[in-house]
């Protein structure tokens, strides 16, 4: 039994469907305690990777483990990992409570867990409604409740924000952060960057089945830059390059606008004042995660 770390580890993971490699030699690690976003455009291989982690799809080669074990080797899988996959459904005749009751029994969990997870996820108000009559948002909550029945150490959620209204997205964000803060490993896949920007601290980025980047969200942004507009932008560039040399990188954005990397707004404003160069605009800027993502995946 694993009593230590509930890392998600992927090594050399490959899945070939027919002649198409959905995932190629993928490797990354996800640690407990923070929310990690699993990013990539649609069709990048996120869902296939998650399904391999969950033992639903057999890898062509490589290993995908949770706490050092394959999903199917876990002694009590549903008490270790909670997962929500995009394609899951419910029996239409079952009420929300029936559904949770079936899976609480299947996982060998106490009956009292059904009421606990319903309270946690906000399912209680529609507990007695048949699942055929649930809205998309209610279904999302019921899936999440099902995943939490076993009070799992690890949560894997495939596109959890799909179909949620803004209020639901905000609730989910806070909820996942709380679960991570309790020391759980939380991996959420998404192709909507704005959704994870505010909830995830770590990212794993894949594209066409391969790893593009992995690390802290802050690192993904890269270096801060300053946007400067001046009728004498050329002179300013010359002055800054002469004073700071190779530490500065300048990009022309237009006839009188430049983006300067490597200096603070204070450095630039002082240099401009010293040389009597008028500045019409000086704005610190950070690339959005969207830009960083496009840059990383090469889809300009």
């Amino acid at each position, binding site marked *: *039994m694993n009593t230590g770390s509930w890392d998600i580890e992927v090594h050399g993971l490959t899945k070939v469907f027919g002649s198409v490699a959905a995932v190629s030699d993928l490797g990354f690690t996800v640690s407990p305690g923070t929310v990690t976003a699993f990013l990539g455009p649609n069709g990048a291989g996120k869902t*296939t990777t998650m*399904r391999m982690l*969950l*033992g*639903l*799809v*057999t890898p062509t080669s490589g290993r995908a483990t949770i706490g050092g074990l394959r*999903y*199917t080797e*876990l*002694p*009590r*899988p*549903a008490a270790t*990992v909670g*997962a929500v*996959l995009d*394609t*899951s*459904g*419910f*029996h*239409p*005749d*079952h*009420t929300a409570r*029936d559904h949770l*009751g*079936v*899976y609480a*029994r*299947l*996982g*060998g969990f106490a009956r009292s867990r059904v009421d606990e997870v319903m309270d946690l996820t906000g399912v209680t108000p529609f507990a007695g409604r048949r699942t055929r009559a649930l809205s998309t948002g209610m279904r999302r909550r019921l899936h999440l409740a*099902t995943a939490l029945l076993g009070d799992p150490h690890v949560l894997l959620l495939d596109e959890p924000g799909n179909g949620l209204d803004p209020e639901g997205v905000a609730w989910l964000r806070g909820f996942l952060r709380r679960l991570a803060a309790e020391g759980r490993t939380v991996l959420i896949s998404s192709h909507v960057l704005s959704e994870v920007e505010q909830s995830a601290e770590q990212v794993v980025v894949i594209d066409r089945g391969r790893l593009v980047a992995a690390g802290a969200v802050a690192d993904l942004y890269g270096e801060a830059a300053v946007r400067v507009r001046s009728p004498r932008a050329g002179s300013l560039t010359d002055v800054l390059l002469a004073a700071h040399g190779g530490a500065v990188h300048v990009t022309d954005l237009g006839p009188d606008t430049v983006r300067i990397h490597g200096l603070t707004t204070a450095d630039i404003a002082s240099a401009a004042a010293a040389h009597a160069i008028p500045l019409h605009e000086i704005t610190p800027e950070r690339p959005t995660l969207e830009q960083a993502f496009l840059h990383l995946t090469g889809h300009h």
Partner: protein
Amino acid sequence: MTASISPRALVSAESRRLAATRLSMWGSLAALGSGGFVGLLALVGPENFDPPAPGLDTAPGVRAVLGLLGLCAFIPALLGTTAVASEYRHRTITTTALFAPRRWTMLAAKLAAYAIAGLAYGLIAVTVAGAALFGAAAVKGVALGLPTATVLALLSRIAVTMAVYTLVGVAVGALIPNQVAAAAILGAYFYMIETALLLVPGVKELYPYLPGGATAALTGFTFLADALAEQTGGGAASLLSAPLGATVLLGYAVVAAVIAVVVPLRRDIT
């Protein structure tokens, strides 16, 4: 902490899953209905059938009525085919596979839960039919053509047949996870294919071991076997004993279940 999910938890989960569906209600109604239908036939009396058959005061008359109930064993088999198919249809198969990743345990749990449900179905059907049969005899003021003990034994064999057929349905349904296809194949086999097979020279010798022959051994109704003997001129095909017939039928269910675990259930769930 237990090392793995207990079989009891699995069976209890599958029973709850089934009990909370409308299928369980329709199943109970079907059981009541088939029992009631046969009871109605008993009340009408075989002597009023077209063509007329021997009455309830004769052994063939009682057997004819009970034989019709035996034919209704096909209904629980159809209900059984939905056990696995509905998981695919309603896309609960993913969640089920996550909670019980060893896929044979899931099928074993369904077989156990449906064995109980099938037996309940059989008991409802034979209780209604049996009550109507004895009632009809009392109303008509005749004594049944078979001793009470024999009638009760035949009724319990039909109940067991219904439970066994439910399992055959579950196993075939797991092998062919398309609900409609599984039902069509089961129906075609029992009502057409097996009869056609018997026309092939030599196959007749195998009849006791074919599903239909095993069913006849279990229920004790030998219309087809007798008709076959008449047509082909040979002696009556010797059927297996009832317990052996049940074992052969269960064997078919086990074979279908094993193939289902090895082939369709092992596939990637995408």
